[in-house]
């Protein structure tokens, strides 16, 4: 029989030990060690992060890190939970790079984050008050020594005119004191500790608050020492009332109050900047659709984006397919040489190619006009219609090699007997292509066409480098032009000029996401019909 070699008696202790050693030597122990080592590294990093987060009191993130680390350990130390072992890394990546970004963008879309609304309300108030300090005209520079008494800080000031020593704190106006002098400057006074300059440097927060009234009359201003050595006399033009939560302009009495719009606003609608970040609900979305100066360009930019993406996909696909068919023909000589040349545009970085094309298409100095058209002045990039044509042409040049490669692969995947059978049945080459090859090809290529559409929909590089959206629309308030697509428009709204509007840009991004997602879902549904062919 076949199983005669099987020992009939149970294994002895020695045999069991031998089997264990053999098993260990064959590998698993090495892997286990490696697994433990890697998990140890992960845990060490998590522990360090937890410590750092703890010192920064970031409780939410700390909680997430701890839970994730625990989960990772639980999953990988177990012998079971095999699916989780495969899924966990992917899910973590998904959450970190996709879900987080998406949620954060969504959140920004509902805020007024942008120029003038950049930080918190506290920061805005302190910044407003700090910049409202005006040095009293023609006031002298006061040599200052910072002194301390039981945790209260004071300024020991030498009057540059009389040479007298004056002492004051935030609550106590300057009064004359007897002081020790060194080099004409008061440096010490009884009962107060003179702080060395190195110590003063560490007291920024205290010194910032230390504004010593010059006299009992607040209109005389107060003395501050921004560098801890020289004092200057300031008056403030703004006053903050913490109870009423208002800021008053002391010059003309205008009261600015917080109306929930993220900035202190006066009754006639004048805002004090900086304001602060606050959620504004659907304001950004409403603005994107209703604001006259944005709606106009938004519509034409959206239409052009679709035209651009569709024409780009179609033109590159058909040129790529045509070339693939040609080079798939075995009667063609030097096929490999041609193929390599055709791949070249694909091998260059797209943004560089776009830059080079922008130079070649320059109206007076470009290669195309100068050499190919004998000095003609064709406004390739400056005429609205020609600029669109140029963008499409350059994108065709950039995009067909990819389609060529894809179609080439797909064509080679179609069995040759299908072709032969069709020839036997008397089909002509066009019929073979139209009825047999193309449908079979589309099964493979359709998902790639959809992703190519999504890519071109957001093909920022090309637009930015080639035309930068130009030529500009001449009747809108944002710097958008005839060849701008949605994503480059978003970029301009968010990142160019002096007035950034991250909130509005995020709202646009969400709208674009919805459009692309809808189109992709519909298209993928449609392509399922193609798969029935197989």
């Amino acid at each position, binding site marked *: 029989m076949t199983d005669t070699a099987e020992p009939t008696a149970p294994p002895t202790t020695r045999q069991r030990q031998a089997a264990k050693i053999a098993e260990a030597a064959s590998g698993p122990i090495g892997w286990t060690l490696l*697994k433990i080592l890697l998990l140890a590294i992960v845990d060490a990093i998590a522990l360090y992060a937890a410590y750092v987060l703890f010192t920064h009191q970031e409780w939410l993130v700390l909680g997430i890190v701890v839970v994730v680390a625990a989960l990772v350990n639980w999953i990988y130390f177990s012998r079971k939970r095999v699916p989780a072992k495969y899924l966990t890394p992917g899910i973590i990546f998904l959450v970190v790079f996709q879900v987080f970004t998406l949620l954060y963008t969504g959140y920004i879309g509902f805020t007024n984050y942008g120029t003038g609304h950049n930080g918190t309300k506290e920061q*805005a108030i302190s910044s407003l008050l700090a910049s409202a300090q005006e040095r009293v005209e023609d006031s002298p520079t006061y040599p200052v020594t910072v002194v301390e008494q039981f945790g209260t800080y004071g300024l020991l000031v030498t009057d540059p005119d009389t040479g007298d020593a004056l002492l004051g704190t935030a609550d106590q106006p300057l009064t004359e004191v007897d002081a020790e002098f060194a080099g004409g400057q008061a440096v010490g006074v009884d009962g107060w500790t003179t702080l060395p300059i190195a110590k003063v*440097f560490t007291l*920024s927060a205290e010194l910032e608050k230390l504004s010593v009234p010059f006299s009992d009359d607040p209109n005389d201003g107060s003395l501050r020492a921004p560098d801890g050595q020289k004092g200057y006399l300031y008056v403030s033009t703004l006053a903050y009332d913490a109870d009423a939560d208002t800021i008053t302009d002391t010059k003309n009495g205008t009261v600015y109050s917080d109306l929930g719009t993220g900035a202190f606003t006066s009754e006639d609608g004048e805002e004090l900047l900086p304001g602060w970040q606050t959620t504004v609900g659907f304001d950004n979305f409403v603005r994107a659709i209703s604001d006259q100066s944005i709606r106009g360009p938004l519509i034409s930019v959206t239409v052009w984006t679709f035209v651009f993406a569709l024409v780009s996909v179609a033109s590159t696909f058909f040129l790529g397919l045509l070339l693939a068919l040609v080079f798939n023909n075995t009667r063609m000589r030097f096929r490999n040489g041609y193929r390599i040349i055709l791949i070249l545009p694909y091998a260059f970085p797209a943004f560089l190619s776009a830059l080079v094309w922008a130079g070649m298409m*320059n*109206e007076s100095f470009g290669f195309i006009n100068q050499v190919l058209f004998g000095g003609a002045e064709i406004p390739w990039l400056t005429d609205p219609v020609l600029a669109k044509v140029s963008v499409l042409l350059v994108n065709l040049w950039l995009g067909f090699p990819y389609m060529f490669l894809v179609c080439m692969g797909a064509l080679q995947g179609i069995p040759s007997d299908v072709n032969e059978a069709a020839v036997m049945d008397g089909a002509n080459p066009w019929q073979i292509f139209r009825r047999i090859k193309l449908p079979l090809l589309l099964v493979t290529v359709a998902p790639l066409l959809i992703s190519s559409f999504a890519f071109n929909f957001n093909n920022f590089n090309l637009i930015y480098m080639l035309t930068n959206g130009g030529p500009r629309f001449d009747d809108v308030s944002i710097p958008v032009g005839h060849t701008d697509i949605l994503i480059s428009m978003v970029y301009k709204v968010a990142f160019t000029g002096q007035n950034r509007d991250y909130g509005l840009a995020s709202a646009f991004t969400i709208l674009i996401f919805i459009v692309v997602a809808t189109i992709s879902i519909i298209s993928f549904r449609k392509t399922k019909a193609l798969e029935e062919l197989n």
Partner: protein
Amino acid sequence: MKVNKRGIAAFGAIAVVSTLSLAGCASGGTADGGSSDGDKDASTLTVWVDAERVDALQDAADAYEKKTGVTVKLLGKSVDDMKDDFIQQVPTGKGPDIVMGAHDWLGELSANGVVAPLELGDSASDYLPVALQAATYDGTVYMLPYAVENIAILRNADLAPEPATSFDDMTAKGGFVVEQGAEGNPYHLYPFQTAFGAPVFGTDSSGSYDPANLQLGSEGGFAFADWLAAQGKNGTGVLNTDVDGEIAKQQFLDGKAAFWLTGPWNVGTAVDAGINVAIDPIPSPSGQTASPFAGVKGFFVSAESKNKVAANDFLVNYIGTEDVQLELFKAGNVLPALTAAADSAASDPIIAGFQAVGADAVPMPAIPAMGSVWQFWGVAEAAIINGADPKATWQKLVDDVTAAIK
């Protein structure tokens, strides 16, 4: 399965690391700039510096540390993203204590509340007037200036031995190029505009630009528009929107143009190319002075800095000295902002040339309203150069800007 474990664990490691880095981003707290811990005697100043100038500042930083015990940490950064990073990081409490930048950032920095006022005290009068004016925003000084930059005429002295006496003289003498581009370049055309008596904004009593007083639409503005049209496509063709920075440079280097209106940043290239460069004032098309924009570079203190005292001291009493300003000058070859340093730097004829032109320069407005102007300005100028009706186009520019500022 065995084989995959390593991969999975590695993935896990990367994933956790990235979670943490995100956590790092999210956690603001007190990352930089020392703690407010009262017992600590030494503090650290973090300074973001244009990467090319780190070395020039290193000596000053070392000397300052030796003298005061305050550690100055210089971080070289790319100029391109310094401003945006600063604006975004300061409110989270990260960011540096001091950032190196240009005065036209001021409007944005101030509107975002990320800069702290700086008291120059009596040393204010030691700076070139244009530098001090540029450092002041809304009556408050925010910047310690270190360099003043303005455009001037670079003349190829081999082709044109004598400076031009007027704009027409210059174009007649042998080629003039100026950088434009499809969307125009108002910065480079500004001296000609001012020569027609049309600055962008008027100034208020304190000398600050007044956004309510738009001078663009003054009589001079329309005269300038007519002149632009006359120099454009349908006129002499001297101005051409197809000429961008690269093309202008090439024409000058090839000797096709004897005069090039550009800034000190291009002098090095021209000298290296073996051209006998002389710096001339900008010839006026109208007889009045042609004032270019001055860009002033300097240092800002973060509004959230925990070390404002040391930062103030370092800037005012250290960077504001002649030696350090001259060090920075050597690194960038741009006229120092401190008058004493500027005068010693002007022993170089090229610097002296720029200084002479700079005497007529006006600071580029940093007020946020300027953003609205830039948006329409260049496009309108480009349209006029390319043959659009000067009166109507300029009027539209004025209307658009007026509407945008409101």
